[in-house]
């Protein structure tokens, strides 16, 4: 019986998942008192791991994050699109280059499809204060061919 359970477990682990469009689990990027940041991968192919070292409403410049994932695309060129919503209304949209051919900002730039990457380091963000409220953030990382590298639906809860 034990063997069967083990086999069943391995079987479920080995079977290709998410084919039916089942969503990835919601993860907590950080939690501190009444502020928490949750995220969920919106890349149908895979999940990824992300955490922020400090979670405070007064966001410091150059916060440290940790990030782990398998690359499904080359990232010689990598761009980030951020869309911020509150109460269903769009507040802010911007696009930021992370890796460019003439300016690879981070040490992971130029790594290849299939590589597993783990990044622990600064983000190069400006500091700002988070006003009270709930926010939805859509983050998308993509490369020169507009192929998705990572996608996250995040929620910032601050009350």
């Amino acid at each position, binding site marked *: 019986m*034990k*063997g*069967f359970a*083990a*086999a*069943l477990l*391995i*079987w479920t682990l*080995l*079977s*290709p998942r998410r084919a039916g469009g089942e969503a990835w689990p919601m993860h907590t990027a950080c939690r501190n008192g009444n502020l928490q940041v949750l995220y969920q991968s919106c890349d149908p*192919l895979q999940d990824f791991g992300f955490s922020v070292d400090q979670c405070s409403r007064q966001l410091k410049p150059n916060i440290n994050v940790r990030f782990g994932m*398998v690359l*499904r695309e080359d990232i010689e060129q990598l761009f980030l699109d951020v869309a911020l919503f509150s109460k269903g209304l769009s507040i802010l949209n911007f696009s930021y280059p992370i890796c460019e051919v*003439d*300016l*690879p*900002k*981070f*040490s992971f*730039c*130029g*790594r*290849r*499809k*299939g*590589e*597993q990457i783990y*990044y622990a*380091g*600064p983000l*190069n963000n400006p500091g700002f204060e988070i006003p009270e409220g709930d926010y939805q953030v859509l983050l998308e990382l993509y490369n020169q061919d507009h192929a998705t590298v990572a996608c996250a639906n995040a929620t910032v809860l601050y009350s």
Partner: protein
Amino acid sequence: MAPCVSCFLLVVLISAGCKAIPSSDPTCTEKEDNRTYNCENLGLREIPDTLPNTTEVLEFSFNFLPTIQNTTFSRLIHLIFLDLTRSKVKISIYPQSLRRCQINWVHEDTFQSHHQLNTIVLTGNPLIFMAETSLTGPKLLKHLFLTQTGISNLEFIPVHNLENLESLHLGSNHISSINLPENFPTQNLKVLDFQNNAIHYISRKDTNALEQATNLNLNFNGNDIKGIEPGAFNSKIFQSLKFGGSLNLSIVFKGLQNCTIQSLWLGTFEDTDDQDLTSATFEGLCDMSVESINLQKHRFNDLSSSTFQCFTRLQELDLTAAHLKGLPSGIEGMNSLKKLVLNANNFDQLCQINAASFPSLRELYIKGNMRKLDLGTRCLEKLETLQKLDLSHSDIEASDCCNLQLQNLRHLQYLNLSYNEPLGLEDQAFKECPQLELLDLAFTHLRVKAPHSPFQSLQLLQVLNLSHCLLDTSNQHLLAGLWGLRHLNLQGNSFQDGSISKTNLLQTVGSLEILILSSCNLLSIDQQAFQGLGNVNHLDLSYNSLTGDSMDALNHLKGIYLNLASNNIRIIPPHLLPALSQQSTINLSHNPLDCTCSNIHFITWCKENLHKLEDLEETTCANPPSLRGMKLSNVKLHCGITGMGIFFIVVFVFSLILLLIFSVKFILRWKYQHI
């Protein structure tokens, strides 16, 4: 006993899975007929039977091939490129472990029959063992990717059949020494990539193994080099050497003594802690020969003219994002510098770069300055040989541009001022740069007083990008003087009343070959608007609101590429079809095309000219509702009188005649009855 039972169950389950998955029919995408196939992310456990034997390029990443052996690809003997990234591949001659129920059983000679195989990608596979002959077979194996495969010892790579190897990628492994095995063939090697390994020391013995390679590109990015044996690079010649993210650059400079390098990349990254650079750091540079150096993202301590005393023979210097507020004045001996990159720095004024130090400069890049950049006056006047100048994304704002700002740039051929703040262009704004061939002003708001002609005197200009410049297109003289202009981009500008009239600003640029007028909110184009443009071979009118009637303006154009995508074209009257017929390629996608009988001539024309139509997948009907979304190529219309209709009409006429005859007969009989 219990482990064996579970083992058996597991085998049954997995073998069931093996059969079940191909039958669930995830199909590979054909990228090129019978040659190129993409089977990524399909969870495949074997090569699908649907792939033809003629397959040459196979992208098979993110599947499940726990073992590869000589039967795995045996059918596809014409393979040239094989990508097995993260397919959980294991190449071995031994059964991996009987306790794992022989799942990892693999044989040698996997590629024995693949004589044409040129590239093998094994990135991200946890390789346990590669057989001596696992790579034999291909006659010209040129590229081998063993990135992140867990290699810690270079002896792991089977040396047989690597004589033709041009690139070997060994990044993200556990390699601590670059010492290649003694019999490792390097004579054809051009790229050797050791990114993100654990190489801390390079010895003479290590580099001697690379003796036979010529023009090698060697990448040590992401390895913290702590020492290089003196003489290790003595009289070696490299195409490029990369030591990105190294913590101590003086070690690198000292270690590269007497080395000849075309391009040396020593930049650092946001996430790398590094030491500030001083004059002492660069001392070793005096004893080597380097053409091009990149020092991106470094910080300079006490930047002075002496910092650059060993840079005298340099031809290219890249100081991107080096936290610079200026360059010191009086740098001597940098007479041979041809290319200087100062992107993403913190200059306030262009004169702070002290351009006079670089009298031979051909190319200067100051893109993405982090502050508002003031162009000042005459800051670049000493750069008499400058050919290429990029000042894009630098928050530049100027009210009277650009003769004082660009004074004396007589040889400038390429100027990029795109993505800046508003520029006021004077009449003959570029008189100081008469040799300009390409001028890019995209997304920079241009203020031009009518009837000024800012581009007058640019007789050699071939390419002009004015997209999203918020131009006053009613100024007929805006483009005057551009005699040789071949490529004009006016995307995202608007025209008065959404219409290009008979007299318009295009009449002064008769030599145009490529004209882009997309996203200009156009509603109509006058029949004679393009009359003067006899040389056009590419016309982009996409993303407007044009209707079929605007085709009239194309009557005199022949054999062009015509993009009419995303317009408001419903019906094209028959008399305008010849204007389309004489063009070589037409894109009519994303238009609300009418698929009723009132448009039958156009639909018939389309079906006869499918080879000329681009993006047929998105060329669909909008009307009638029953055909909405249907591809135009699939529409079948029956208009005019059908056979049934003719039959009924004949019957009707025939009965009418009969009726007539009978009534005449009746009337006559009735009339003459009384006689």
